[in-house]
């Protein structure tokens, strides 16, 4: 019972994980992108359409990542090159993405994916690891997309904390003027990592439409992208902590449904509030116990303008 719940938790948390990682990248270079929900749903619809038409899972994932990256590119152009307000630009991206997805997706609402896709995302138990008691079943008897999520966490962690590139990224986020003085090409870095972050968000969306649901429906993301933005704060901009946050909230999003079996004297509609209320509680706790270590990148939200430093 518990194992099967935690197994489902990892699945429900995976879209959150990708989106959170993507947003961490963007925020590390100092850009608060509130368009996560929009980039996710763009990835979700593109992944589904390409998957539906080609039956090729890799192409579908590529299309999803490209769609997310495209959204992020629009955002990067506006906020980095044209120095537009980051909050409003991100919000607009979410509105744009929602419209984009509902427009492109209206022909495929309710369609099923070809078997080639469904088979590709079947569970693949990892030999040896899957035999670890308890953990093996939960973590290593999953589909390839989820394993890719583990890989993404490690890659991002190494990138940020073990490489020069990561050092530069963090310097841009903490003190753009110093980075500029060190000869780091801020614009290039921002574009690269905002776009890469968008691609990750697009993949998170694709997990919903290709694996989790896996039918196209409007509003398929239903706030997952926004919870991811909150999870960035929860995980204090650290990819390793993001994985715990994502799975924890993944669990919260399915716990209401699972509790129904127990005939609790509380309405399912109220239990549906759980992930959102928990997000609020997390936000409050994080703001109360503010400390030096769990601070946002100092440049977050500011456009860098050399003459103003």
């Amino acid at each position, binding site marked *: 019972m518990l194992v099967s719940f935690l197994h489902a938790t990892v699945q429900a948390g995976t879209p959150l994980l990708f989106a959170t990682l993507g947003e961490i990248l963007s925020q590390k270079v100092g850009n608060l992108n509130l368009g996560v929900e929009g980039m996710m749903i763009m990835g979700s619809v593109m992944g589904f359409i390409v998957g539906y038409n080609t039956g090729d899972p890799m192409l579908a994932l590529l299309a999803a990542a490209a769609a997310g990256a495209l959204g992020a590119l629009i955002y990067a152009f506006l906020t980095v090159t*044209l120095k*537009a307000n980051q*909050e409003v630009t991100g919000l607009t991206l979410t509105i*744009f993405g929602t419209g984009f997805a*509902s*427009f492109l997706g209206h022909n495929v609402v309710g369609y099923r994916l070809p078997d080639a896709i469904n088979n590709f995302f079947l569970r693949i138990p990892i030999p040896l690891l899957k035999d670890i008691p308890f953990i093996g079943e939960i973590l290593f008897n999953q589909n390839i997309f989820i394993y890719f999520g583990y890989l993404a966490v490690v890659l991002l962690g190494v990138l940020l904390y073990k490489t020069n590139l990561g050092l530069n990224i963090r310097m841009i986020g903490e003190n753009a003027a110093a980075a500029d003085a060190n000869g780091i090409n801020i614009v290039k870095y921002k574009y690269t990592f905002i776009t890469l972050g968008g691609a990750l968000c697009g993949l998170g969306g694709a997990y919903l439409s290709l694996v989790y649901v896996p039918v196209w429906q409007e509003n398929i993301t239903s706030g997952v992208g926004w919870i991811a933005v*909150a999870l960035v704060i929860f995980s204090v901009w650290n990819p390793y902590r993001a994985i715990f946050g994502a799975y924890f909230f993944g669990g919260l999003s399915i716990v209401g449904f699972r509790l129904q079996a127990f005939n609790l004297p509380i309405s399912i509609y*109220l239990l549906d509030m759980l992930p*959102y209320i928990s997000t609020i509680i997390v936000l409050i706790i994080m703001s109360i116990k503010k400390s030096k270590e769990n601070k946002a990148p100092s440049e977050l939200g500011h456009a860098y303008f050399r*003459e103003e430093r």
Partner: protein
Amino acid sequence: MRIAKRDELTGKSVAIIRILAILAALVISGIFLIIVGENPLQIYISMVDGALGSGFRIRETIHTTIPLLVTSLGIMIAFKMKFWNIGAEGQIYMGAFGATYFALNFSYLPKPILLILMALGAMIMGGIWLLIPALFKAKFGTNETLFTLMLNYVAIKWITFLQFSLWKDPNAMGFPRMANFTENAMLPKLFGVHIGWVVALILVGFIYVFMNHTKTGYEVSVIGESEDTARYAGINIKKTIIRTMFIGGGICGLAGMIQVAGISGTLSVELSRGVGFTAIITTWLSGLSAPVVVIASLLFAILEQGGSFIQTVYQIPSSVAQILQALILFFVLGSEFNIKYKLVPTKKSKGGI
């Protein structure tokens, strides 16, 4: 070439830049429409026709403008303070909830009294829904963007609960819907449109005066410019945030009451359908000016109405309108670069600036 700050532009050239930005958005979405095999010119023309082509259509467009305008005014006070209230959608629903409570339980009261109670209920519920994040923002600096956004979902789930369970109409033959309001809980009409439009215009005046000619309004804009300056000037920041956010949320809540009592005559999860989000665009588009937001709301209502018209006539999804709205804001956001900065040739500026 390099970027330099520009001196303040005149209102006229700012307006021209904005209009050019809107035109550019129309061109880009036109290209998009051509790519997906549609004729943009035909679509734009029928959108305008669908929104303004007859007396009935104009009234429908005004019906769409009213909640958009009222909500924008509520959001505007928050944005002026750089308090990112993304929760207007939830405030609308909670306002509608407050109004519906009185409409269903006190339907025996005379119309004027009942309507006033409904409006008060709506403003208090909407106000509380923004007051909660405002309190936490003032006390702990809790991120208000995400807080207000999460409250949208909580509000919608709450309304779902009411509609499907607690307030489900037992006479609806099993349908998950609430009871219809009685006639005395409905807004009266003036010139064929419910009087929400009068309320909206009065609010435009109120917000204009509040922001430009009152002490609190001035304090709001100082806090928005710089909290340090505000603190130095002896402004009680926490008190101002809390007080004005209660008003802002209350106005958004009132939009919810206007919708239930003016249009739907009952409360459901279908009530707002994104007005709270569209209003964010219109608010920003107006440059946070109460009179300008009237035009912005009307423009976006035309897009919405036109969008649903082309859906029925050409089976083109109405989300075209949403894409167009987002593109307009993208271009306006981008065009602000031209208002604040200019490109100057690198050679000439060696000694200057």
